[in-house]
């Protein structure tokens, strides 16, 4: 299992692996928003939580179809499915690798993007907490979508259509957490809901993803 994690990380970092693309995409989104809505700091500060979460969502979506498609094409997915390793574990490890290569860099870089969007200093820590708690759920749910579409030729668009509705609760609670944190309001409910959704998806969704992979390899 650890070997699989190391392999996936290595593949992501090597040439053509796409590591850092998500981060660059996030930067572009954040750069483009002020051109769209105007440079007024107060407006930007108000919409910053939503923009940052949407950016994280889309950056995550960008790399989802690679999770299984590459392994499916070169036959490693067949070999992994017949290897002495539970497929649920394979799926969970791949989701974890995806989070380490796309989610975690966003969490670390987020304060910089927050500054670009005039996010008040009081909200910066909430931004990091909210992304840290929420992005693992994005990776795990994305893995589920990727597992459903793994055998399809033009699965990319379908994947977005399938996965994005699943992101709604995480998006709502994640952005709400930053907003409430910035205004000094009570943050317990969104904080706990966000953590709860992530914990439940990390624990349960790999079973659904593994089932979908088995069906698709049949």
């Amino acid at each position, binding site marked *: 299992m650890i070997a699989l994690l190391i392999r996936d990380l290595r593949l992501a970092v090597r040439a053509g692996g796409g590591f850092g693309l998500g981060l660059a995409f996030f930067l572009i989104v954040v750069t483009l928003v002020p051109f769209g809505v105007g440079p007024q700091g107060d407006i930007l500060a108000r919409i910053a939580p939503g923009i940052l979460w949407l950016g994280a969502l889309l950056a995550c979506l960008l790399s989802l179809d690679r999770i299984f498609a590459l392994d499916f094409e*070169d*036959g490693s997915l*067949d070999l992994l499915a*017949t290897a002495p390793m539970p497929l649920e574990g394979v799926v969970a490890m791949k989701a974890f690798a995806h989070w380490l290569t796309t989610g975690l860099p966003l969490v670390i870089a987020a304060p910089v993007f927050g500054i670009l969007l005039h996010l008040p200093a009081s909200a910066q820590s909430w931004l990091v907490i909210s992304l840290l708690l929420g992005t693992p759920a994005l990776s795990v749910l994305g893995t589920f979508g990727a597992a459903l579409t793994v055998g399809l030729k033009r699965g990319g668009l379908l994947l977005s259509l399938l996965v994005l509705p699943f992101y709604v609760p995480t998006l709502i609670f994640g952005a709400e957490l930053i907003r409430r944190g910035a205004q000094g309001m009570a943050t317990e409910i969104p904080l706990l809901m966000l953590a709860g959704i992530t914990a439940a998806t990390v624990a349960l969704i790999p079973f659904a993803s593994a089932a979908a992979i088995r069906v698709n*390899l049949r």
Partner: protein
Amino acid sequence: MAMLSVSNLAVSRGGLPVLENLSFALDAGQALVLRGPNGIGKTTLLRTLAGLQPALAGTVSMPAESMAYAAHSDGLKSTLTVSENLKFWASVYATQDIEPALERMNLRGLANRAAMSLSAGQKRRLGLARLLVTGRPVWVLDEPTVSLDTASVALFAQAVRGHLATGGAALLATHIDLGLEEAKVLDLAPFKALPPEEGGMMGAFDEAFL
């Protein structure tokens, strides 16, 4: 003691049976070549044996954790080096040493090359080295010699013989010559599934609609 025994197996593809009443056994030191025209169900049969899809009927019995499956493609990661590819599978199968496999497949000189820079034959050899690394006794190989030249086919046959000599067994599906004269050959054509009105079996999914 059979390392793999199959009795009255029926397999289906896309909801309809393709092969039925298939029985054979494979002992240690034996190789069995499955032959038949394209579309007869060789790949379907091997995938069923590997556990990737359920059998329609019949039984497959073998000792637990004894099979290593290799599909059409080798499952290599092109940006990883030869030894990184092998080390990954070695740790998946909990066998640590990749040196003997490199040695036997004549890959030692290429160990630090990225897999994408290998020729087709070298890639196939790396795929076979992966099988060695698994440490599993029963090899199930789908078209193992596709894209190999004569010299590489000979090397492949030698590798399979070496595996058989150490008490292993191999099941190979192919429609070209493998250079394995001692292997038994099983022609799949007589096992082609018949339509139900000619005495073939029912029970595949789509049959419910007929």
